[in-house]
């Protein structure tokens, strides 16, 4: 009898440990309309999630929505199935996440680039102006003509925030510098219009700019094309885009959506998921500039040292970068 008891305890214990080993976290990722192949914003989110799948062994499903009305059913479908953590990429999903999260209080949600106040939602926001400041300074240090360009994707406050930081950084290095700024458009299609991006970039180069920062999603490819055609420089955004046109891309302003998404998944797996707003800035490398084998020749040691000094000053609070959101 006693043996049987012990055996049954053993079986139960074994069963429990087996179950906890098998219970992998299931993560559902709803991308923005740009899709995972934009090599920029969505690509970064997708990379973070796939890295989590490889390193943490989570189960991952991602979907690309067909239209604005599709966010909610997709988020809901994930919540209704046995997914534990549901991640929505982009400010367009704010309302849908708020609604679905309220209906599924036992599930965890993450929203990127906007804030949803709910007990089961973590909001990931980035200090885009700080990153813009650093690449603006690098652009000003590199420019020979005293003119630099900025090409934003869709004209929304988020992208204005990149611009104000960029301009402030450039003026910090050279107060006389001219910044020419254009936007690809006013609708979401502005994220994916490389011909228009190229047209604007060619006009800026011909007006004397020799470095252009493209914060324009997939429209940035047009800017890179123009840089190659005019033998000038461009700056990439969100993901490290230095490899896209080696020698033409001075650096990329990294917005580490991948890291933020990865850490949210990791927290969910360790049972440490917390709701609330998480900001990512220069201090925690949530925004940064890139150096790798594709652009190291374009960034001399002196430029890097000055950029890193500015970084340290911003982190220490000695420089306050103007924030478009607080205007």
């Amino acid at each position: 009898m006693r043996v049987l008891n012990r055996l049954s305890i053993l079986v139960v214990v074994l069963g429990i440990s087996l179950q906890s080993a098998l219970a992998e976290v299931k993560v559902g990722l709803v991308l923005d309309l740009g899709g995972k192949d934009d090599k920029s914003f969505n690509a970064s989110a997708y990379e973070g999630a796939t890295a989590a799948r490889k390193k943490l062994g989570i189960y991952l499903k991602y979907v690309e929505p067909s239209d604005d009305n599709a966010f909610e059913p997709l988020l809901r479908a994930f919540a209704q199935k046995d997914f534990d953590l549901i991640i929505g990429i982009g400010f367009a999903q704010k309302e849908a996440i708020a609604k679905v999260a309220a209906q599924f209080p036992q599930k965890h949600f993450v929203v990127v680039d906007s804030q949803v106040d709910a007990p089961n939602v973590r909001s990931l926001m980035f200090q885009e102006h700080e990153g813009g400041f650093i690449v603006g300074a690098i652009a000003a240090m590199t420019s020979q003509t005293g003119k630099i360009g900025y090409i934003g994707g869709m004209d929304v406050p988020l992208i204005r925030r990149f611009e104000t930081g960029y301009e402030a950084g450039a003026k910090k290095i050279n107060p006389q510098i001219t910044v020419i700024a254009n936007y690809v458009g006013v609708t979401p299609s502005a994220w994916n219009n490389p011909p228009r991006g190229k047209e604007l970039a060619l006009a800026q180069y011909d007006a004397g700019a020799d470095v252009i920062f493209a914060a324009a999603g997939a429209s940035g490819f047009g800017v890179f094309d123009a840089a190659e055609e005019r033998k000038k420089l461009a700056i990439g955004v969100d993901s490290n885009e230095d490899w896209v046109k080696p020698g033409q891309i001075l650096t990329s302003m990294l917005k580490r959506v991948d890291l933020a998404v990865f850490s949210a998944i990791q927290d969910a797996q360790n049972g440490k998921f917390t709701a609330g707003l998480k900001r990512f800035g220069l201090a925690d490398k949530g925004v940064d500039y890139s150096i790798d084998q594709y652009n190291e020749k374009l960034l001399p040691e002196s430029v890097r040292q000055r950029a890193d000094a500015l970084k340290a000053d911003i982190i220490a609070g000695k420089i306050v970068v103007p924030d478009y959101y607080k205007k």
Partner: protein
Amino acid sequence: MRKLLQPVLAVAFGLALGLGVTRLAGENPWHVLQILWKSAFGSRYDFGMTLFYSTPLIFTGLAVAVPFQAGLFNIGAEGQLTLGALATAAVGAVWPGLPWPLAPALAILAAVTAGTVWGAIPGWLRAKRGSHEVINTIMLNFIAAGLASYVTLYLLKNPDTQNPETRPIGAGYLISQFGIFGGAPVSVALPLAILAAVLVWIFLWRTVIGFEMRAVGQNESAARAAGINTGRMTIIALAVGGGLAGLVGVGEVLGNAGKFRLGFSPEYGFIGIAVALLGRNQPAGVVAAALLFGALHKGTADLDFETEHVTRELSLVLQALIILSVSADGLWSWMKKRSAA
């Protein structure tokens, strides 16, 4: 009988062919079909979303079918529905305090008016200037998109969000949603769409104008010789089509979003062409075809979840194959000849 049999067979053939293609991607076609079915009709909510996507397709299908009966090809439903939805939201944003039922009545009137005007312009150009409606409706789509962007972003912008959308409409404008669909935004717009289909049938087959319009469509010179004002019929046909497309705004703005969002339409206007074609330009056929295409749009959304290799773009493949099989008229007459021989 053949009129009914042919589209049904064409749909079955197109579906079978499209699902067969998934076999090449390493999926089990039967499994894919099950996913489509489950995602489109599997629960009240899923079925509700299917109906939600079908509703605008009924309107745009009719918007293409009516001018087609007069021999005109309306490629402009996308622009007409954009302005219809914009006008609906504009009324609601400018006068948010209006009480129900006056508020939705006014907004619906605005939707119809905006669409009608946008349809009448290419009609007038065709009738008076002889310029082709296909070119003009396409060009008016671009103008409508530009106008909608301008009004949304510069005149009626919602200050509380980064999304390109208008301020929310007043509460008195909202039309009721059916509760049985588990929260899917199926609103009174659906019965309105079916009512519109019935009215279109009465208009085309039970009124003098409808008869004259169809006469123009079947033989313009004969109609003119019979004393029909063909120019007037051209304008009316496209104006009615435009008004029907404008009604898409009712379900989207009053029954769902409560505001106009730029780019809300996953090309309802262009899918409407396929809906009209499959529905043989008959109101009942349009309703059935809209239901099928709505189910395809919703059904394929879950392919990303449930399969490894097939994505929601299968929806486009299936639409294309169904349309190809529907329009393979030559094949049908060949088969008929063969069976006769």
